[in-house]
């Protein structure tokens, strides 16, 4: 029951406070969103009003706070046009530029009106509003002087600077002030805030540790940030804690001395309460300190372990994935996953594909076959191929014959057969071209290659003439020979394995005789 009550109290009673804090951010987002859409039909909507706002605020802080002087419009205008030129490369005609700068500055000061944020107030159950101005103006003589508002400074610092400082420190200083002004109740609130900050830091520490466990590089980065924002304030915080404790003790001693009446008793009770809370907070803070020491030790261990594992000969999964992350290529992960799977055995047909079949759109009409550009080809007839083959085979046999004839004057067919068998194995005798060769060559008794070159009587001579054109055959150019049939001689019979009996190769002996050139001449 208590918990629910506390929660409702937090929701309802503190809502106004929260909205008041939120109001600081409101103008920024208003400006960021709407500033340039309506101006000159959105011609300058590429300009970033958020950036310009922050730049102008920083300019104001520089002039108002650091140089301690108010700013006049011409200075602001020249600063804004400087931003436009430097950061947005926007160079305009002087008149148009003036118009734009005026517009920007009007927007920033919201035409002099505060930015109003409306919200629902749950306490009064009615609409409420909070207001906020970025820039204030005062009149001095005839000139208007501009200054930045305190809220705007707070907003600006909140975007970065405060984050780097220790919130605990700020709260401590506040606490000191509260003790001085004897606002002990407010002090308890401050301590509560300190405690919540301590808890936040402890949570952050746990996150850093988890990150270190999964990715050392990210973890180290987070650790550095944690050290920057959290841990570096420790000694100062400790000092302030003890200082506040001292103050408390003094306040208590003084109160105890002079305590009279109910009012004093109440403030004494306040002091006691505050003291207890402060003690608790100090204990909490001490624990956080030891936690952080522990974090440092464990982080060192993890980094050491990581370094060590990188030096070992094992395959490092994390390093592999880190490299893939760096290359922004998730497909590399498949190299880690696919080896773990069973061999693919089932060849499946996906049911999803039936969907595709059904949803495949039918074509509206028939499309004509597209004919590519055709190339004319040389067509070779069957008999041409045959002829080519025959002349190739004849060439081989004739070359052998001519070789033999140049070596010896008389070459019997039996010798030629042996030579052919040596060259082409006995398969030559199964070749019908061999027989047709014999038939063709026997058509004439005398051959004079010189004459054949000029005039061919038979088909065979035609082939010979073609052959003689080859450079390798030039050496036979003057060859003459004749054929002597020897019917009385024994028949040549070739027993060829695998052939049927009646297919035995039988020829009568022929003697090729080389004729001497002078005789021919």
């Amino acid at each position, binding site marked *: 029951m208590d918990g629910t009550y506390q929660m409702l109290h937090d929701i309802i009673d503190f809502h106004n406070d929260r909205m008041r804090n939120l109001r600081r951010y409101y103008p920024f987002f208003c400006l960021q969103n709407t500033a340039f859409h309506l101006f000159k039909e959105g011609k300058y909507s590429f300009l970033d009003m958020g950036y310009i706002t922050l730049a102008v605020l920083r300019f104001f802080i520089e002039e108002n706070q650091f140089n301690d002087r108010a700013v006049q419009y011409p200075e602001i205008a020249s600063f804004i046009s400087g931003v436009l030129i430097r950061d947005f490369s926007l160079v305009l005609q002087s008149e148009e530029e003036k118009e734009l700068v005026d517009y920007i500055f009007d927007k920033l000061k919201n035409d002099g009106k505060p930015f109003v944020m409306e919200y629902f107030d749950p306490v009064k159950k009615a609409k409420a509003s909070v207001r906020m101005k970025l820039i204030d103006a005062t009149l001095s003589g005839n000139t208007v002087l501009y200054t930045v508002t305190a809220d705007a400074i707070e907003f600006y610092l909140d975007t970065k600077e405060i984050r780097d400082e220790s919130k605990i420190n700020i709260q401590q200083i506040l606490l000191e002030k509260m003790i001085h002004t004897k606002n002990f109740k407010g002090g308890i609130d401050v301590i509560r805030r300190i405690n919540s900050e301590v808890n936040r830091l402890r949570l952050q520490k746990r996150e850093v540790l*988890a*990150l270190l*466990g*999964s*990715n050392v*590089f*990210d973890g180290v*980065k987070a650790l550095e940030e944690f050290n920057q924002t959290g841990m570096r304030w420790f000694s100062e915080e400790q000092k302030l804690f003890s200082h506040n404790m001292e103050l408390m003790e003094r306040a208590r001693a003084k109160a105890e001395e002079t305590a009279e009446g109910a009012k004093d008793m109440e403030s004494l009770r306040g002091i006691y309460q505050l003291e207890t809370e402060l003690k608790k907070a100090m204990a909490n803070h001490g624990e956080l300190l030891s936690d952080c020491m522990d974090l440092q030790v464990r982080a060192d261990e993890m980094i050491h372990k990581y370094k060590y*594992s990188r030096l*070992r*000969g*094992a*395959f*490092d*999964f*994390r*390093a*592999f*994935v880190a*490299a*893939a*992350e*760096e*290359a*922004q*290529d*998730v*497909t*590399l*992960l*498949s*190299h*880690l*996953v*696919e*080896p*773990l*799977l*069973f*061999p*693919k*055995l089932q060849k*499946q047909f*996906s049911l*999803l594909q039936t969907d595709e079949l059904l949803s495949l759109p039918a074509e509206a009409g028939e499309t004509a076959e597209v004919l590519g550009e055709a190339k004319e080809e040389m067509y070779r007839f069957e008999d041409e191929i045959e002829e080519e083959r025959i002349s190739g085979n004849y060439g081989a046999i004739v070359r052998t014959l001519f070789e033999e004839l140049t070596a010896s004057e008389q070459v019997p067919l039996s010798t030629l057969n042996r030579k052919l068998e040596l060259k082409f194995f006995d398969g030559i005798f199964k070749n019908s071209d061999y027989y047709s060769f014999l038939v063709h060559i026997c058509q004439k008794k005398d051959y004079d290659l010189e004459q054949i070159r000029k005039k061919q009587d038979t088909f065979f001579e035609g082939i010979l003439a073609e052959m003689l054109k080859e450079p390798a055959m030039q050496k036979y150019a003057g060859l003459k020979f004749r054929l002597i049939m020897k019917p009385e001689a024994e028949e040549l019979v070739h027993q060829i394995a695998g052939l049927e009996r009646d297919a035995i190769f039988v020829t009568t002996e022929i003697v090729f005789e080389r004729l001497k050139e002078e005789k021919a001449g």
Partner: protein
Amino acid sequence: MEQKSLEKATELLAALLIGEPVEAKGGKNAGLYEAYHESGEVNDALDLMLKKLNLRVYEYNYALYIAVGEKNRVFGYSNEDLKRMMGLRLNKELYLCYYLIYQAAALFYQDSATYNFREYIKLEDLLEATNHGLAGMVSELHRFENETPEETSFKALAISWDELPVIANEDTQGVRAGRGSRSGFVKLVFNFMVSQGLFTEVGERYYPTGRMHALIRRYFEEEKGRLYELQQRSSKGGEDGAAY
């Protein structure tokens, strides 16, 4: 080589291929395990066949396990195959599953030689590990909102993860596998890994199997040279596309 040895080796290959356990401690294939161990001929014959088929066999804790070699056109899977098996539709979902499988393995093994002495993992463990693994990239996404990243980039992976709710429907009891939530995806991946013999489930706790240990220790140990080269190439990839 004796016909008998060849026969045994073929029998062994068949048993491994269809996913039957081949262990020394028992089962119908204990004899085959023994033959592989005792007979050099069986061993050689199996090795030869595996090599020609681009398959590997690994021994771990008195059992044999088969794995598919790199770019195996017959026994390997295409993206389409895997999507079909897991019931996914998009490639980026498949990549997310790859990442989850990697995280599951990394919970047990930081590298191929360091076992984390963890007995089992639960669904939440993998969910948390993935959250942590992608935390850096997700926070970067919140800081810089850039143009749409490529489908195969880790940024796209981080976006997919970041945009998923932790659970799809708070009313239903327990987590169901599905593509609509982080826990659904984790469950889906666990189911797949169980079907692939990498984990066994006992009451929502997932224990790694001998097959998982064998493959991680042996396969990656053996292939580390090639993978390291790939890793080097990918880190230099942006500059020239090839390291060597």
